[in-house]
């Protein structure tokens, strides 16, 4: 076993440490300077720190944050594996711009395990080699005679000649290692923690109320705030209703009203006083210009007047000639509505902006990009701002968390006190960034049982408007205080066409992207025209971004073409598939589901089965889903009764964690397919509650009694890279369900959500 050279230096701290980092461009002197400046902490560019002292404690400084998907546990497994530790010997510091690396961007896109796992494994292995080297010196033996177990290194298999904890090996010295790409790592055949269904390390604290979320952060002298929202997306502040303002100011609890531009908030020492104040305050807003009426979206999204950029993304063969030569051709248009993250907890943040410094506690997916955006909002240098991630309600993408953080910071700046801002349910439902409505125009041609031509034309507003230093205008409070949103995305720079390319082998294949504007643009540019007028609701990243809608269109149209070719939908897919791993997940899902056998239906119902397949981002995890449905022939109500998923994401780190993610994909996928649609009128979103009620509209999500049975088969490939699974399989669901409804009833439903009314209208007379 090779040893790693350790550079070392004296340090004045009582106990030492061993850190491993990436891009350790700083010299030891540089690190010393950084450590002094940061109050004795070691360089931020470090990922792994082994503490000196009596015991063994390894700390991961992770830019990737725990969003409820279990990445903290999975990354802990990887480190524990390479360093021969028990899980409770690993601590996890996450998403703190003063303490964790800044190069990791967002925790998003199913990318944590596949992108951060391998370098973290190398860092852990580098640290391990460093510890072995220390032990070899201290015990006076070759490293080959050493053995590590549960955070101790000793001589021989059973440590008969003594052993030391990692902390004892380090003592009071400080060691800085650069992660070494050629360091020996464990063979996957020797894994004892990776690949096991380790329990989530963070859940016991949740189930016992021992650990809080960002909503439970309390600071000394902290005030509570609620925001009073404009009447609509394009409304402007005119003035306060004087009587209501006086009434607010008479509420006990030191209630004050703050305003900057169209941003209005009520602040009080007592949370309920702030809430009552916000309810009491009446603001006169100008009537904003109406957005494109919701009922016109299916045509308006295709209107050239609303499309600011178009072009081919894929052009293979000659689609037009192949269509002309096909014995049968087909065209169809699909539509999906605006949908929302619908986090169960309304967004919340705590901020303390004072003395030209800011500390902000947030459940953001990207502490560093948020810090950049905050520097613009607050007019402070980034170095004066600390963003600290604290877990919040599951987000599934860019929800209200960043906006709430920025609003809390703005209010704190205006009143000079620490602020806890709690969004209401109506704030979250009405103002979080949505996933956009999309239209897909499909054309295809078949000759015999072969698809000769395939064309997919995607029409979509933005799927990514995350805030950042260069995109601070994407923050809601920036917009409310007069800033324009960041430029509309350039062709190719967004995720409108995620999973729009299919992995089927088509000789003639064209993908056309059409980017739809959400606000008026300066002609010929992607820049917002001032004053900003929104024509569509604000949109950003939601689980799989464009992939959900694109896969709905692709997989529905595959079935339509199979029907045209008189082919079985599974056989038709396999016929156009040469990738063995793709074929395997489809065949396994079909076999498990009993493809070809009848699905039984009670009287008055029609039953059917459908398949959906995709390869996430066309080059990552493979997923196939078979859905079974019951359709009420009288009402059109669809019930998904069973979903089988076969999933291949290469090496599996934590099988139960992976199952949990797939279950979430299935349940959200069913919910979004059957129930979910944001509703708006004029320039304001009107679905502000969970359920429809007297005088209010709801954004319903799946209830427990609507959840299907879920059967999951995991394909584990230890020798292959580990791909992410957070959003790989959700896109299989809408197509599989639509195909099952067609199989059951002969009705082809081409728009979501498949409410009873929509399905009933599609049912054959």
């Amino acid at each position, binding site marked *: 076993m090779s040893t790693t050279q350790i550079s070392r230096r004296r340090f004045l701290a009582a106990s030492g440490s061993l850190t491993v980092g990436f891009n350790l461009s700083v010299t030891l002197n540089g690190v010393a300077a950084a450590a002094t400046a940061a109050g004795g902490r070691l360089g931020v560019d470090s990922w792994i720190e082994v503490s000196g002292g009596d015991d063994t404690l390894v700390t991961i400084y992770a830019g990737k944050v725990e969003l409820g998907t279990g990445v903290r546990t999975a990354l802990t497994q990887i480190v524990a594996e390479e360093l021969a530790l028990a899980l409770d010997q690993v601590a996890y510091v996450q998403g703190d711009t003063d303490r964790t690396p800044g190069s990791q961007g967002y925790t998003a896109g199913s990318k944590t395990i596949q992108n951060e796992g391998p370098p973290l494994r190398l860092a852990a292995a580098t640290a391990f080699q460093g510890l072995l080297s220390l032990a070899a010196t201290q015990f006076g033996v070759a490293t080959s005679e050493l053995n590590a177990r549960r955070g101790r290194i000793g001589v021989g298999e059973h440590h008969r000649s003594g052993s030391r904890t990692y902390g004892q090996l380090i003592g009071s010295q400080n060691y800085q290692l650069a992660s070494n790409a050629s360091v020996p790592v464990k063979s996957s055949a020797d894994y004892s923690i990776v690949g096991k269904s380790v329990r989530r390390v963070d859940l016991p604290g949740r189930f016992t109320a021992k650990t809080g979320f960002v909503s439970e952060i309390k600071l000394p002298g902290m005030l509570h705030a609620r925001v009073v929202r404009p009447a609509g997306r394009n409304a402007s502040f005119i003035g306060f209703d004087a009587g209501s303002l006086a009434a607010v100011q008479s509420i006990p609890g030191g209630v004050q009203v703050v305003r900057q531009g169209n941003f209005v908030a009520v602040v009080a020492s007592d949370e309920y006083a702030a809430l009552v104040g916000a309810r009491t305050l009446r603001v006169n807003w100008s009537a904003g210009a109406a957005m494109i009426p919701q009922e016109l979206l299916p045509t308006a999204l295709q209107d050239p007047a609303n499309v600011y950029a178009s072009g081919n993304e894929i052009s293979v063969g000659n689609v037009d000639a192949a269509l002309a030569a096909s014995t049968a051709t087909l065209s169809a248009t699909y539509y999906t509505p605006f949908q929302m993250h619908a986090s169960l907890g309304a967004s919340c943040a705590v901020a303390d902006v004072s003395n030209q410094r800011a500390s902000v506690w947030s459940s953001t997916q990207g502490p560093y990009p948020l810090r950049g955006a905050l520097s613009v909002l607050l007019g402070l240098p980034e170095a004066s701002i600390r963003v600290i991630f604290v877990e919040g309600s599951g987000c599934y993408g860019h929800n209200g968390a960043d906006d709430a953080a920025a609003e809390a910071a703005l209010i704190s700046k205006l009143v000079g006190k620490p602020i806890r801002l709690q969004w209401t349910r109506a704030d979250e439902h009405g103002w979080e960034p949505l996933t956009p409505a999309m239209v897909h125009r499909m054309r295809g041609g078949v000759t015999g049982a072969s698809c000769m031509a395939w064309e997919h034309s995607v029409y979509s507003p933005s799927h990514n408007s995350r805030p950042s230093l260069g995109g601070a205008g994407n923050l809601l409070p920036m917009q409310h205080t007069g800033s324009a949103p960041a430029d509309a995305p350039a062709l190719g720079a967004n995720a409108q066409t995620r999973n729009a390319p299919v992995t089927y082998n088509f000789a003639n294949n064209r993908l056309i992207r059409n980017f739809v504007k959400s606000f008026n643009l300066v002609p010929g540019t992607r820049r917002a025209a001032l004053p900003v007028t929104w024509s569509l609701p604000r949109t950003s990243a939601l689980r799989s971004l464009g992939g959900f809608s694109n896969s709905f269109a692709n997989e529905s149209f595959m079935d339509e073409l199979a029907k045209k070719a008189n082919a079985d939908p599974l056989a038709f897919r396999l016929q156009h598939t040469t990738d063995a791993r793709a074929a395997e997940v489809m065949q396994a899902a079909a076999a498990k589901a009993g493809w070809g056998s009848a699905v039984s239906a009670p009287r008055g119902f029609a039953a059917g089965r459908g398949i959906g397949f995709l390869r996430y981002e066309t080059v990552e995890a493979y997923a196939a889903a078979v859905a079974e449905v019951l359709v009420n022939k009288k009402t059109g109500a669809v019930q998904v009764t069973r979903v089988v998923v076969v999933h291949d994401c290469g090496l599996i780190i934590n099988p139960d964690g992976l199952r949990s993610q797939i279950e979430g994909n299935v349940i959200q996928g069913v919910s979004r397919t059957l129930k979910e649609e944001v509703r708006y009128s004029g320039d304001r979103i009107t679905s502000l509650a969970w359920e429809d009620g007297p005088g209010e509209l*709801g954004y319903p999500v799946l209830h427990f009694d609507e959840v299907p049975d879920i059967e999951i088969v995991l394909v584990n490939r230890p020798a292959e890279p580990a791909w992410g699974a957070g959003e790989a399989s959700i896109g299989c669901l809408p197509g599989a369900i639509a195909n099952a409804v067609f199989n059951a009833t002969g009705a082809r439903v081409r728009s979501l959500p498949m409410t009873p009314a929509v399905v009933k209208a599609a049912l054959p007379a």
Partner: protein
Amino acid sequence: MPRPTSLNIVLNGVAKSVPVADGSEPLLFVLRNKLDQVGPKIGCGAEQCGVCTVLVNGRAVRSCSAEVQSIPGGADVRTLDGLADKGHGQGRPKRLHALQRAFIDEQAAQCAFCSNGMIMSALAWLEARRDRDEPSDEEVKRFLSGKGPGAVAVTLCRCGAHLRIVRAIQRAARDMRRGDFDHGRSDDGDCYDDDRSGPFKGRS
């Protein structure tokens, strides 16, 4: 006009008295801000999600909509914070309630923001039906959908942990029926095999 009052309750077995400036204030805010409870969460303010659930005199109550002035004096209020037996440990629960253990065993959460609502709703329901057979999965699903005997209102999960939550509640029902607050969990290990055939100890 706000009507000042005071909230006098027995919170997780301990008498508490708190002055409240406005009797219309929801119990939720008083529990969180004046009595330092971490379990009950702010979700919708309209009894549509369940994350704020606490028990008042044994009944599951959506505390976001329960005005302080409607809480009877001396009411027995239970929260997730007080569900585990505190025992003698340094801040570490001595014994977990069967529901908490079952949620761990079934890994019945993703973000866990809904967990308070799931556990506290199920607590009232299972305690009321202690003498009956373990509920079927259909019964649990109906209960959490706000339907059937003992149901309060819809209880939402957004992450998709539904089937695990149903299994956890069924598992807890079995343990509670045995009168088993702590049935002596044998598996304190971190790991278990994916087929769940038994505890797995990592070689580390």
